[in-house]
């Protein structure tokens, strides 16, 4: 199915892997080098890469992808509760259940296209969220979230170990994955690299070409006697599996899952990540995910106190007005910063951060014909 990737792609993969594995060093100066946040970077990176396989390649905008992430998380936690604290079976179960669910949802939703498809996926996700919060509480533990308890059966573990006094941690053959520490991060990081590689192969494969063809003109594809539905469904399911994998990893690094993980705003978040980073590019979605998670976790924790610390070198008469202006955008105003950044990026850089980087690159390498180094988001005609 796959040809050998070109040399450029190997370079990209190597560079990407190096950056991801060195995150603890690279992120130190901006205060993000702690395992929990780096895990989130990787997990949402996987989620966004998967979303991009559907949206970036086929142009189908799903507004319900968070549902697959939620299903994956619930499946993983149930695996911890029922069978074993080992991360592998949980992740396999997460991917499996997300895939099965994606087959059903995809089969129904892909009967429509355009905004009708978006609303169908949104409707499914909202139904999942609403039911998980209330009626399905025996399965999801509702508002409180599904979590491990001391009297879970854990059948497989029970065969091999004496149960310890407290709650067991998620492990990978003895390595503690949950409860902080770098092992969880490296599990996520390496999974992200594998996912990136698979996505790259999909982008370069005939299958990927087929999906792009569907995006540019599905009718023409149909006129040639080509049945597009199976290809779309395959893309949808693959992207659902990515989401399930992300959900499984989320549960593995932190075995508690609440229903709000499936709310439409969570689905909206992955759309924002993908577009912010650059739709249809390989690296873009990961970048977008990192930027949004960084805002959510770091910007929200600044306050006037911290600002005064940073700007302390200025004379007071300049410092105070600057601080009071900046404090609008940090702390409880981090949402405002996010909104402004979205608007600026969409207005001036429709291709997301990746386009910005490419423009900077082109600025330094003024050579014509250098523009197709990266596949760029194509503008669809607005009918």
């Amino acid at each position, binding site marked *: *199915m796959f040809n050998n990737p070109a040399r450029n792609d190997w370079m990209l993969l190597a560079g990407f892997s190096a950056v991801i*594995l060195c995150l603890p060093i690279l992120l130190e100066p901006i*205060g993000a*080098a*702690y*395992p*929990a*946040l780096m895990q*989130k970077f990787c997990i949402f990176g996987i989620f966004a890469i998967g979303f991009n396989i559907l949206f970036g390649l086929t142009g189908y905008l799903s507004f319900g992808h968070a549902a697959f992430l939620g299903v994956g998380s619930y499946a993983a936690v149930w695996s911890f509760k029922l069978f074993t604290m080992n991360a*592998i079976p949980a992740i*396999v179960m997460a991917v499996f259940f997300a895939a099965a669910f994606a087959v059903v949802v995809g089969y129904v939703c892909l009967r429509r296209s355009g905004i009708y498809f978006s609303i169908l996926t949104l409707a499914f996700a909202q139904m999942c969220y*609403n039911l998980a*919060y*209330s*009626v399905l*509480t025996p399965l999801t*533990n*509702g*508002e*409180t*979230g599904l*979590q491990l308890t*001391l*009297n879970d059966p854990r059948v497989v573990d029970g065969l091999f170990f004496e149960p310890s*006094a*407290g*709650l067991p*941690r998620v492990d*990978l*053959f003895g*390595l503690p994955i*949950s*409860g*902080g*520490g*770098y*092992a969880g991060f*490296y*599990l996520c*990081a*390496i*999974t992200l*690299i*594998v996912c990136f590689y*698979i996505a790259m192969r999909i982008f370069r494969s005939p299958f990927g070409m087929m999906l792009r063809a569907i995006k540019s003109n599905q009718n023409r594809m149909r006129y040639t006697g080509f049945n597009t539905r199976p290809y779309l469904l395959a893309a949808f399911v693959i992207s659902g599996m990515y989401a399930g994998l992300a959900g499984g990893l989320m549960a593995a690094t*932190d075995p*508690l899952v*609440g229903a*709000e*993980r499936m709310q439409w705003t969570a689905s909206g978040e992955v759309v924002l990540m993908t577009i912010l980073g650059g739709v249809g590019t390989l690296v873009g979605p990961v970048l977008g995910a990192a930027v949004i998670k960084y805002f*959510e*976790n*770091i910007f*929200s*924790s600044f*306050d006037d106190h911290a600002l005064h610390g940073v700007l302390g070198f200025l004379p007071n008469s300049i410092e105070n007005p600057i601080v009071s202006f900046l404090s609008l955008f940090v*702390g*409880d105003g*981090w*949402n405002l910063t996010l909104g402004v950044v979205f608007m600026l990026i969409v207005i001036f850089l429709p291709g997301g951060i990746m386009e910005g980087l490419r423009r900077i690159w082109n600025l330094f390498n003024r050579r014509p014909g250098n523009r197709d180094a990266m596949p760029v988001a194509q503008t669809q005609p607005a009918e």
Partner: protein
Amino acid sequence: MKFEPMNRRLFLKTSAIAGVGLAAPMHFIRNAYADDMSCNVPTGDTVTFGWNVPLTGAYADEGKDELKAFQLAVKHLNGEGDGGLISVLKPTALKGNGILGKKVAYVHGDSQTKSDAARDGAKRMIERDGAIMISGGSSSGVAVAVQGLCQELGVIFMAGLTHSNDTTGKDKKRYGFRHFFNAYQSGVALAPVIGEAYGKDRRAYHLTADYTWGWTQEESIKNATEALGWQTVAAVRTPLGAADFSQYITPVLNSGADVLILNHYGKDMVNSLTQSVQFGLRDKQVNGKNFEIVVPLFSELMAQGAGDAVKGIYGTSNWDWKLEDDATKAFTKSFGAEYSTPPSQAAHTCYVQALLYADACERAGTFYAPEVIKALEGFEFDGMGNGKTLYRAEDHQCMKSCLVVQGKEDPKDKFDLMQVVKVVPREETTYDAAMFGGELGPSDPKQC
């Protein structure tokens, strides 16, 4: 595609090896400390607390108030300001020079009233900023989620505003402590008062937020009112965040019920109460009696949101700034001097929690978590505004008095919306700790 599982397994193995390689040095460094180290025990001259409060979303105003209270507590602990409740707390080991000679610093995060965001924030404060204690809250879902995380990481969690029975019941944890009261205590406190006001022969209709907090409250209130001789006509579940409750209120009109009990909180409560009043329920006569509405859990901010609709409505409250005891007066004065508004009950419980934790460290003589837990368990104190209070060892729930309040008919200003009808003494609100099940788990320290 079919190679994917094999690849993953291979990569996971690699990851395991890489992980060992990279995690090992960390492990050795951590273990190099003495044996009596628990997570984030301070080594420098400051000790860091983590405030995890909602700054965005529906409870943002409540979160801001909590954050103010925390900042005030830190000030007082470090011996700045007027000292607040430090001088009133009895017994106290606090000296107003920090804790165990270390200055108190704090970090904060936005919990967004979502368990995922709250856990992310708590992890940042623990892993990056070295917070030794996490506090804050606005909903029980978030409190239970963060409490679970703190148990796992071995960091003490002093819950802020969380009212569900589960927090110190089914989901109680050794590392989690709650000062706020719960739904069961609301029911026990409220029932006699509304029984006296509305009579023993009433037919109640419940509208309940369809999630665990709503269910536990519905059950508690139902049991308490049925013990009075009331009948329950129906208990209807409403979706969370339904902006318009009219379709749930219309059936009440013809149900033959003469009391409506709204088991809602936050915006749901503001909307359902406002709309119920608009439907003329309070002007109605049913079964020859005036129709009444009861809101078991009140908060000042919600009362402000509901405006005139709260007038005359009965509910319960953990604490109110209009109480007459010295501790309440001292706290109201010092909070008012700092921020020119009276404190809310959320602010009060958060402030008290911060002080109690600091006091426990002083009494234990160490920050070592298992010792601090021991110092808090079974601690009996007075002078925090709720009379003599016991931090019960069995479930880490505070046993103390709570209030029955009523919306004021003629408020002087927007801080004067409720009047205290009755202070329900601790003896009446105390219940059997084993009632809600759950297990605290071990207090073994974690190396984080």
